[in-house]
């Protein structure tokens, strides 16, 4: 009997020890896309600190240095673009040997001269209309703070605040999530979460190519958008080796949802050889909802499997399916390896078209590849080495590929210190 109690007590201590969550973790991220598109260097840090058993504080900070190029329609007059090889876009003039890219940064790429950095305009020479990369650079600073409080019945309330700042985009978000245990043994829980996000976007020259802009910020207009995200989830421990979590979510967005960097071609006329290049225009509201399910199972004492599936649908005509899987292999007590595979497929938005002779007077129009129908696969690997009880280091190498032709490799390395 005494032995049994000792084993139970030891197991409980192990369980409690493994839940101690005082740590600081640092990661350095390097992300690079093909075709000289986006490159990101991002150091980030997260601190998690328990205050007794009733409070946990989590703080995170990231600094993104972003550079590269985004593909969109432009006028190639004046050697402003790189040709972009993309079969989905009918850029039929492939003999352009211009090799300069157009640079932009801030306020949706405002140019100091006040002219549109994206060469928007009407009655342009249609021969010069290209789908190509436009260079940009930006810096993003983002931070988050979350406080979790536990009540006498061990229910949890987490309130958080997130802030993000770029040259031409500011975001503030407040969130709250309440988790309620449904049974005494704490194997079943239900959570309700709600967040409100307010975004400010500095844009320039939405209507024409010769608008006045603020020479400092480059902005001619400040737009805003809001987002409300609600999620109801149910979690169940299935046995001592596995659990499942099911979530239903709804997201309501309102305001300026257009991507200020993206252009479309309207009124392409073969006879007069003219075309207009204007900002894309998306609806000013979006309602999305969906469901997700996650299942985690310790297959053996060394191998764990995490599976997740998500279905998403919105009123822009898009839906998507995401399947994500990660396998963790504890090679020794010091080494943990992860191998992951994620598959994703989405349908195109109602107002998406990639052709330059398609749009005329449609209200909503976008040629942004993110609004197109495509699939993607992510291959993930990670190695985590425990140096001591306090210190561990990791290295992660990953490859992301889209059917649009956009590929990316990203590496992460860093450390974690438990205190």
């Amino acid at each position, binding site marked *: 009997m005494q032995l049994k109690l000792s084993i139970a007590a030891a197991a409980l201590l192990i369980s409690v020890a493994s*839940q101690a969550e005082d740590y600081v973790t640092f990661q350095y991220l390097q992300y690079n896309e093909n075709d000289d598109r986006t490159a990101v260097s991002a150091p980030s840090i997260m601190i998690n600190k328990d205050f007794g058993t009733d409070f946990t504080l989590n703080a995170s900070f990231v600094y993104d240095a972003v550079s590269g190029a985004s593909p969109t329609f432009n006028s190639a007059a004046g050697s402003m673009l790189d040709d972009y090889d993309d079969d989905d876009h009918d850029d039929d003039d492939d003999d352009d040997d211009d090799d300069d890219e157009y640079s932009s940064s801030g306020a949706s790429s405002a140019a100091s001269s006040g002219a549109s950095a994206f060469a928007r305009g009407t009655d342009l020479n249609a021969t010069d209309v290209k789908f190509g990369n436009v260079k940009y650079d930006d810096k993003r600073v983002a931070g988050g703070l979350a406080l979790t409080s536990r009540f006498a019945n061990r229910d949890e309330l987490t309130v958080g605040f997130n802030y993000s700042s770029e040259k031409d985009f500011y975001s503030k978000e407040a969130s709250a999530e309440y988790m309620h245990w449904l049974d005494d043994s704490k194997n079943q829980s239900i959570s309700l979460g709600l967040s409100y996000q307010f975004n400010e976007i500095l844009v320039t020259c939405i209507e024409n190519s010769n608008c006045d802009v603020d020479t400092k910020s480059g902005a001619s207009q400040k737009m805003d958008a809001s987002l409300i995200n609600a999620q109801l989830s149910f979690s169940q421990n299935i046995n001592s080796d596995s659990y499942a979590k099911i979530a239903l979510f709804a*997201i309501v967005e309102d305001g300026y949802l257009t991507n200020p960097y993206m252009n479309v071609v309207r009124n392409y006329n073969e006879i007069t050889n003219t075309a207009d290049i204007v900002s894309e225009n998306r609806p000013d509201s979006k309602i999305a909802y969906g469901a997700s399910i996650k299942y985690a199972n310790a297959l053996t004492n060394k191998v764990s499997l995490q599976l997740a599936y998500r279905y998403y649908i919105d009123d822009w005509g898009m839906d998507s399916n995401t399947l994500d899987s990660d396998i963790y292999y504890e090679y020794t007590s010091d080494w943990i390896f992860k191998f992951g595979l994620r598959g994703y497929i989405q349908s195109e938005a109602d107002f998406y078209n990639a052709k330059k002779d398609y749009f005329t007077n449609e209200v909503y129009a976008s040629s942004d590849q993110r609004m197109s129908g495509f699939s993607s696969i992510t291959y993930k690997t990670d190695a985590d080495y425990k140096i001591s009880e306090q210190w561990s280091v990791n290295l992660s190498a990953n490859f992301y590929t889209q059917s649009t032709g956009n590929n990316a490799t990203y590496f992460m390395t860093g450390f974690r210190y438990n205190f």
Partner: protein
Amino acid sequence: MKTILILSTLLLFSGCIKEVKPWEKGVLAKETMKDGGTNSLGKKFEEHMYFSKEASKGGSGVAGGGCGCN
């Protein structure tokens, strides 16, 4: 959506669920069983990347912050 509902129903009403005592939760508390596994910051970055490259979001919590991703 139907798949989710079917799986949810099976999970809720299946006989495979058994009560897990507090001292049996050591495996469930392992990092390899948690969201993000051994690298929770890396998970945040990946979600940020998917958010900026794909048109879907949601399902992994309500907090996350905004981004004017190009």
